[in-house]
C-alpha cells in the first residue's frame, strides 16, 4: 500500500454528530495549524439541526496557500456511527482512517488501501472522567490529542491554546489538557509510525488572521458608524448582527450613563427589518440589516420603495442554498439575480462581492458610504462559507483619517444659502444624485413628502407621464455614476496572448485561482482571470471578456446567474461564456473546476494538467 505522504499539504475530515461539542475541538485543531504558520482552511459542513444529525468539519492544510476546498480527504476522524461506512468509503486511497475502536469495526470495513487507526476514545474517556456531560466534550479533545501525535504537531501548541481559551477558568482547562495527553499518549504507544502526514512550523502567514466573514461584516458596520440595525434571525446571517451587538457593547457604551450609542431591534420579520433600516436611513442614521435569500424575497417590496424614493439602505446577504428554504445550512452564490433586480418594476441595486474577511469588513464599511452617496440600497453579497467558516485573511485595517461620506445632505445653513428653489429630486449636478434633508433640520425650509408613488422634482405627487419617465431616466444616470464608485474588479493577466479567461466572484475565488495555477504550472495553459467585486459592472469587465475567445464563468449556482448578468448588462455574446457551475451546497473545489476546464480543453484538443486531484471532481 502506498501511504499518502505529505508535509503541510493535506486535508483532514472530522465526521461528528451535531451538538456533541465537536466544533470547538475541531476548531482547536485548525487554530493550532494556523499558529504553526501554515495556511489553513476549515469548513464546517453542518445540518439544519441542533442535535443528532451528521456534521463534518474539513480542514485543509496548504503550505502553498490554497485556501479553497481541494476535493477529497487524506485523513478522516470518523466518530459518527451514522456515517462511519460512508466516511470509510470516501477516504482517498493511501489515506488514514482514525476511529473509535471501543467497538470493533464490522465486516463491511475491508479496505486494504488505507491505514486504519483505532483509538478507544469512549473507553479512554470513561476511564479518565466521571462527569457524563464533560465526557462527551472531552472525547473530542482526546482525538485531537491523538491527531497531534499522528501528524507530528508540537504538543505545547495545543496546551497553550487551551490555556488561552480557559485563562479565566483554569479549572476547566485542566481536564482538557488531561484529555489531550491521554489521546497523544495512546497514539504514541500504539501507532508510532502509522501516519505519513505531518506538519512543520513555517512562516507562510505573516500578520494574517483567522476570522469568519460574519464577524468581519458586523465589525465593518461598527467602524462605518452604523447606529441602527433591524434584523430577523436567519441562518447563516444571524452572527453578523450578533457580532455587531458584541462590538457595540464593547465600543459604544457611554461611560457616564451606561447607555449605548446604537439601537438594535430584533424585528418581527424581514419586512420590518428592512422597514426599520429605511426609516432610520431616511432620518439620517446609518442603518443596516443582515439576512439570507428568503429574507431578500420578503424585503422585495421595500427594495423597490428605497430604490424609487432614493433612500440609503445597507443589507448584508449571507447567501445559502435555495430555492425556497432550500438547504438552510449549506452554501451557495445563488441570489445574484434576485438581489440585482429585487422588487417590482424597473429596479437595479448595487451589489458588492467580498471574497475574504478583510473584504467583508471593508465592503460592509464601504457599503454605507456608497448607499448614502447614491441614496439607494447596497447589498453586500457574502455566503455561508465566507460568513460562518474561519478564513485566513489579511488583517483588518482602518484609516483613521477616513471620514464618512454622508452624501448630499443639506444642513439648515445650506438651505439658507440656496439661491434656487430646492427640489428633493432635482438633479443639480448632472450625476443623477439629488440632495436630501433630514427631518427637523430647518423650521421653514427643506421639508418634503417622501413617497413611493411618482413624484416630480420637488417631490410633489404627479401622474404626468413625461415627469415619471424623466425621473426613471435620471435614475439610470445615477446608475452610471454608481459604476464609477463601486470597487473595481481584480484582473490577473498571466499571459497577454492567452485566449482563455475566467471570471468569478466571492468564495469561488480561492478554488478558481488554484485550478488556474495548476494549468499554469503545467506551463502550456495560461488562463487570465477577472474577479468581479461589484455590480454594476465597470467597462473593464466587458473589456476583459472581449479580449478572450473563451471565458469560463465559475459560480456556485445552477442557473449561471453571473453569466446571465454579464450577458444582460455587458452585451456579451452568450456562446463566449462557458459556465462552470457547482450547486451541491458545499464550497466549490479546485478539483471540480480543474476537471471542468480540462473537459472543455479536451473538446478543443489539448493535454491534461499533471496534478488533478480526485475527490469530488
Amino acid at each position, binding site marked *: 500500500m502506498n501511504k499518502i505522504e505529505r508535509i503541510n499539504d493535506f486535508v483532514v475530515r472530522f465526521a461528528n454528530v451535531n451538538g456533541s461539542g465537536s466544533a470547538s475541538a475541531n476548531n482547536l485543531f485548525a487554530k493550532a495549524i*494556523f*499558529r504553526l504558520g501554515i495556511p489553513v482552511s476549515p469548513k464546517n459542513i453542518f445540518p439544519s439541526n441542533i442535535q443528532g444529525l451528521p456534521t463534518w468539519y474539513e480542514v485543509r492544510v496548504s503550505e502553498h496557500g490554497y485556501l479553497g476546498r481541494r476535493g477529497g480527504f487524506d485523513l478522516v476522524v470518523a466518530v459518527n456511527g451514522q456515517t462511519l461506512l460512508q466516511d470509510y468509503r470516501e477516504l482517498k486511497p493511501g489515506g488514514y482512517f482514525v476511529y473509535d475502536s471501543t467497538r470493533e469495526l464490522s465486516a463491511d470495513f475491508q479496505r486494504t488501501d488505507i491505514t486504519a487507526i483505532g483509538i478507544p476514545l469512549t473507553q479512554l474517556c470513561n476511564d479518565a472522567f466521571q462527569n457524563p456531560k464533560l465526557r462527551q466534550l472531552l472525547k473530542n479533545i482526546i482525538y485531537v490529542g491523538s491527531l497531534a501525535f499522528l501528524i507530528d504537531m508540537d504538543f505545547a501548541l495545543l496546551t497553550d491554546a487551551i490555556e488561552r481559551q480557559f485563562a479565566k477558568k483554569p479549572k476547566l482547562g485542566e481536564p482538557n489538557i488531561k484529555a489531550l495527553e491521554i489521546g497523544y499518549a495512546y497514539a504514541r504507544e500504539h501507532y508510532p509510525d502509522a501516519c505519513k502526514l505531518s506538519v512543520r512550523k513555517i512562516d507562510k502567514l505573516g*500578520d494574517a*488572521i*483567522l476570522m469568519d466573514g460574519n464577524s468581519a461584516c458586523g*465589525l465593518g458596520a*461598527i*467602524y*462605518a*458608524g452604523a*447606529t*441602527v440595525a*433591524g434584523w430577523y434571525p436567519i441562518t447563516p446571517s444571524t452572527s453578523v448582527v450578533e457580532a455587531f451587538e458584541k*462590538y457595540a457593547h*464593547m*465600543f*459604544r457604551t*457611554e461611560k457616564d*450613563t451606561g*447607555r*449605548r*450609542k446604537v*439601537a438594535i*431591534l430584533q424585528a*418581527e*420579520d424581514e*419586512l*420590518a427589518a*428592512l*422597514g*426599520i433600516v*429605511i*426609516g*432610520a*436611513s*431616511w*432620518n*439620517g*442614521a446609518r*442603518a443596516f440589516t443582515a439576512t439570507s435569500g428568503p429574507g431578500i424575497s420578503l424585503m422585495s*417590496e*421595500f427594495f423597490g*420603495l428605497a430604490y424609487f424614493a432614493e433612500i440609503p439602505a445597507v443589507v448584508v446577504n449571507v447567501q445559502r442554498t435555495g430555492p425556497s428554504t432550500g438547504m438552510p445550512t449549506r452554501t451557495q452564490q445563488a441570489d445574484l439575480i434576485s438581489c440585482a433586480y429585487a422588487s417590482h418594476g424597473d429596479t437595479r441595486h448595487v451589489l458588492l462581492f467580498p471574497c475574504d474577511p478583510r473584504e467583508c469588513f471593508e465592503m460592509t464599511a464601504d457599503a454605507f458610504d456608497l448607499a448614502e452617496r447614491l441614496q439607494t440600497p447596497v447589498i453586500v453579497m457574502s455566503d455561508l462559507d465566507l460568513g460562518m467558516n474561519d478564513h485566513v485573511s489579511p488583517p*483588518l485595517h*482602518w484609516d483613521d483619517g477616513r471620514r*464618512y461620506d454622508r452624501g448630499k445632505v443639506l444642513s439648515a445653513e445650506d438651505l439658507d444659502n440656496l439661491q434656487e428653489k430646492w427640489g428633493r429630486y432635482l438633479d443639480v449636478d448632472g450625476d443623477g444624485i439629488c440632495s436630501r434633508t*433630514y*427631518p*427637523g433640520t430647518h*423650521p*421653514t425650509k427643506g*421639508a418634503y*413628502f*417622501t*413617497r*413611493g*408613488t411618482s413624484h416630480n422634482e420637488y417631490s410633489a*405627487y*404627479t*401622474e404626468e407621464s413625461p415627469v415619471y419617465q424623466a425621473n426613471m431616466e435620471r435614475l439610470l444616470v445615477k446608475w452610471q455614476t454608481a459604476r464609477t464608485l463601486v470597487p473595481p474588479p481584480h484582473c490577473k493577466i498571466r499571459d497577454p496572448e492567452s485566449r482563455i479567461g475566467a471570471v468569478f466572484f466571492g468564495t469561488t475565488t480561492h478554488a478558481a485561482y488554484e485550478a488556474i495555477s495548476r494549468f499554469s504550472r503545467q506551463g502550456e495553459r495560461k488562463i487570465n482571470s477577472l474577479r468581479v467585486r461589484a455590480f454594476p459592472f465597470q467597462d473593464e469587465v466587458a473589456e476583459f471578456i472581449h479580449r478572450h475567445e473563451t471565458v469560463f464563468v465559475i459560480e456556485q449556482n445552477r442557473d449561471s446567474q453571473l453569466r446571465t448578468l454579464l450577458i444582460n448588462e455587458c452585451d456579451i455574446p452568450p456562446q463566449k461564456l462557458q459556465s462552470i457551475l457547482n450547486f451541491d451546497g458545499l464550497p466549490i473545489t479546485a478539483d471540480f473546476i480543474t476537471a471542468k476546464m480540462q473537459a472543455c480543453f479536451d473538446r478543443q484538443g489539448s493535454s491534461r494538467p499533471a496534478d488533478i486531484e480526485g475527490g469530488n471532481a
Partner: protein
Amino acid sequence: MSIDRPVFRHPQAAQNSAGYTRRDYEGAISTLCAGCGHDSATNAIIQACFELSIEPHRVAKMSGIGCSSKTPAYLLGRSHGFNSVHGRMPSVATGANMANRELLYIGISGDGDTASIGMGQFAHALRRNLNLNYICMNNGCYGLTKGQDSATADRGSVGKKGVANPYSSIDLCELAIELGASYVARGFSGDKQQLVPLIKGAFAHSGLAFIDVISPCVTFNNTATSTKSYEYVREHIEATNTFDFIPLQQEILAHYPEGTSQEVVMHDGSIIHLHKAEAGRDITSRRRAVDTLEEEKARGRLLTGLLYVNPDIMETHDIINSTLRPLNSLTEADLCPGNTALQQINAGFR
C-alpha cells in the same frame, strides 16, 4: 397631484405661544372625497398641534398606503412626511424614531393598513411601546380600491356593495390594550371636541399612543345599513368620560369637585384630567378597560374616549438603553473605534 394652498395669511390670525398661526400647521389641499371623515380627523390633528404649540418641523409624519395614509400630505406642510408601503408604517416609523428620539412622530394608518396587511407590524410596535402617535382612521372598508370590507367591518354591516359582512370584526382598541399599548383611545371624526384632546394627550404620552378614529367613508360605507356610517355612529356612541388635557407648565385653572375626577400625570408632566361619567371606570386598569369595552359592546354601544393609559411604562429607547442623544447626530468621533482598537481585534483572531 398635490394642490398647494395659497400662501395668504390673515394678518390678525391668532398665534400660539410658539408664534405660529393655525395655518402654519396645514398641508396641501385634500384630494379625498368631499365629506370624508379623514379630513375632519386631519383637522383635529392640526388643531391639536396648534394648541400644543408644537414646532411643525419637529414632527415627522409617517404613513402606509390607503386613503388615510394620504392625509399626512394634507397636514403639517412644514414637516417631513413619509408615505411608505402598505401595512409597513410601524417599521418605518420605528427606524425613524430610532434615528432621532427628539422628534415627535405621528403615524397615520387605516383599518386595511393596520388590521389586515399590517397587523404584524402594528402588534410589534405596540409590544415595543414605540414612542409614536398611532392614529388609525377606521372606516371599515377599502376606499381606494372601491369599497371592499375591511377586517374592522362589523359582522352583518352592509356597505355600498349591498352584501353583509360575514366575518367577525377586529376591535383594534381591545387588541392594542392586550398587546401592550400604553395609551389607547377611540374617537369619532365627527366629534372634534373629544378628538382634539385625545390627540393632545397622545402627544404628551411617552410610548405608543393608539387612537382608533371612527372615520366614515362617505362614498362606500355611509349607507343606512353600515355600522361605520355617520348616522349609526352618532346614534350608538357612548363616551367614557369627558376630559381636559393640561399641558406641562400650564396653570390649572379649572376647579374639579372632589370625587368627580381622575387625574393622570403623563410622562412629560402634563396632566389628563378626567371627569368621571360613572364610578368604576379606572382607565389605568388594563383589565377593567377591556371589560368596559366588551360591556358597552354587549349593550350595542360604541365606547369612545380615553380607554386606557399607563404613563409609567418605558418606551423602546429606554427598553434597549440607547443614548439620550439622537443617533443621527453622532459622528466618527462618537462611533468609530479607530485603527488601534482594530489591531487589538486582529490579535484576537491569531
